[in-house]
């Protein structure tokens, strides 16, 4: 990491100004607010590139303005001065040298950033498998203690400071896993398995999105990402591994009948794998891959008319009587 730290100091002065300027308006889904080793490496490269390219641009514009002003004065003189290009020939060579040096710096910087991404690849890392579906994310964690896989969806939890190796694949069409604050994007292509290492350095909520056009609801395929300290993460993962607690009321039976063909809630007859696993549904912050907040009203609306909120989604509008819909909603809201 020495090189990237030293490089950061070189680009410090102009970089700091620029970072401050852009950092101010950087949100929870932006490469300008890096929160992991990988994102820092790319952020440094971005600053280096912007600075070098900015200088070259100013150089070109200065040359253009100077030439136009100078040539306008010459236009007033009637006679065409004899053309002596020897000075210009030398400056052509000089400009070629400038461009080549600028490009070499950028190519070298890019190569080093690539190496930094590789260096961040630790051997002993926790395995997470993320599979892209048409318009939601299926996420499976390999519990290091038990070696068994725990399935959840649409919300990715990462331990702070530890490297997580995310294995990316697709169930149907090409998607792209992109959580800008945590790392660059990698496509999820059917027939291939891509690897991505994440080493978060800052805890909190971040947001990712699918970055490869994948059909009607490509816009509503967001990913909520939570970075906790390792202790909280292990507790959360252990909680996810448990089956759903016994619920009272008719909601569970209604859910198993009407929704169990596609959704699974461990510990109940509902075992469909077509849709996301809802065992700990209420523990999530958002519904339907970042489309709606986890509120009672949003949940009822989503159950009643999914096509209105996410047109084209594969979730059918299950015709339930209001009482039944209310029972199912309260059952789901209890699935902590």
């Amino acid at each position, binding site marked *: 990491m020495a090189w990237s730290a030293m490089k950061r100091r070189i680009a410090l002065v102009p970089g700091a100004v620029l970072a401050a300027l852009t950092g101010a308006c950087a949100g929870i889904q932006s490469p300008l607010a890096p929160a992991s080793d990988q994102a820092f490496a790319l952020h440094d490269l971005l600053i280096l590139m912007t600075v070098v390219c900015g200088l070259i641009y100013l150089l070109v514009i200065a040359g253009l303005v100077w030439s136009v002003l100078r040539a306008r004065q010459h236009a007033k003189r009637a006679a065409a001065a004899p053309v002596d290009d020897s000075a210009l020939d030398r400056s052509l060579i000089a400009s070629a040298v400038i461009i080549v040096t600028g490009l070499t710096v950028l190519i070298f910087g890019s190569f080093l950033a690539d190496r930094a991404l590789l260096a961040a690849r630790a051997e002993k890392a926790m395995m997470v498998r993320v599979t892209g579906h048409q318009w939601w994310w299926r996420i499976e964690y390999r519990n290091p203690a038990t070696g068994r896989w725990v399935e959840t969806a649409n919300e990715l939890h990462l331990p702070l400071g530890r490297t997580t190796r995310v294995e990316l694949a697709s169930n149907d069409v090409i998607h792209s896993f992109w959580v800008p604050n945590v790392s660059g994007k990698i496509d999820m292509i059917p*027939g291939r398995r891509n690897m991505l290492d994440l080493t978060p350095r800052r805890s909190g909520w971040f947001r990712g999105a699918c970055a490869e056009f994948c059909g009607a609801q490509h816009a509503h395929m967001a990913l909520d990402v939570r970075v906790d300290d390792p202790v909280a993460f292990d507790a959360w993962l252990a909680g996810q591994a448990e089956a759903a607690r016994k619920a009272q009321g008719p909601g569970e039976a209604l859910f198993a009948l009407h929704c169990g063909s596609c959704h699974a809630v461990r510990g109940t007859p509902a075992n469909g794998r*077509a849709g996301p696993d809802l065992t700990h549904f209420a523990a999530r912050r958002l519904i339907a891959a970042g489309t709606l907040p986890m509120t009672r009203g949003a949940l009822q609306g989503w159950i009643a*008319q999914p096509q209105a909120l996410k047109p084209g989604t594969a979730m059918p509008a299950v015709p339930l009587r209001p009482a039944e819909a209310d029972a199912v909603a309260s059952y789901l809201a209890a699935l902590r």
Partner: protein
Amino acid sequence: MLIVLALAGCSQEARRLVPGPPQTAPNGNADPRIPAYQENLYQISQGGRYFAWYGCSACHGEDAAGPANLADGDWRHGGGFANVFAVIGERHAGQDYAARTPVEQRWQLTAYVRDLSRHHAEKRRRIMLDQKAEPQGSAWLGPQ
């Protein structure tokens, strides 16, 4: 020539992603709502995906024989839209598809199943290969 061709094709290709009207079962094989599903390629393809997700291919897969083979075009209980729709709902002992599949999805499933025999086996196999990783009922074999 282009215009005539285009107008003929437009209903087949329409893709309405707005919420469909509340659905009831088709009444008879000449229900006016049938062409909106049977003739629309998007509804048929959605039917195909629900066919996989509800696990129908477990019994009705490509190599199913006899009455379970839905692509040979002969229907034990009548090939009309309403007949097939009724068979899906009521004649699957123990599966209770009437409750487990919403009505609009059953329309799509019926349209898909009745459309199967209009395609060559290679075409069906080609689409099946692309959707090999789709979950089949309660089984999911992992991504492609």
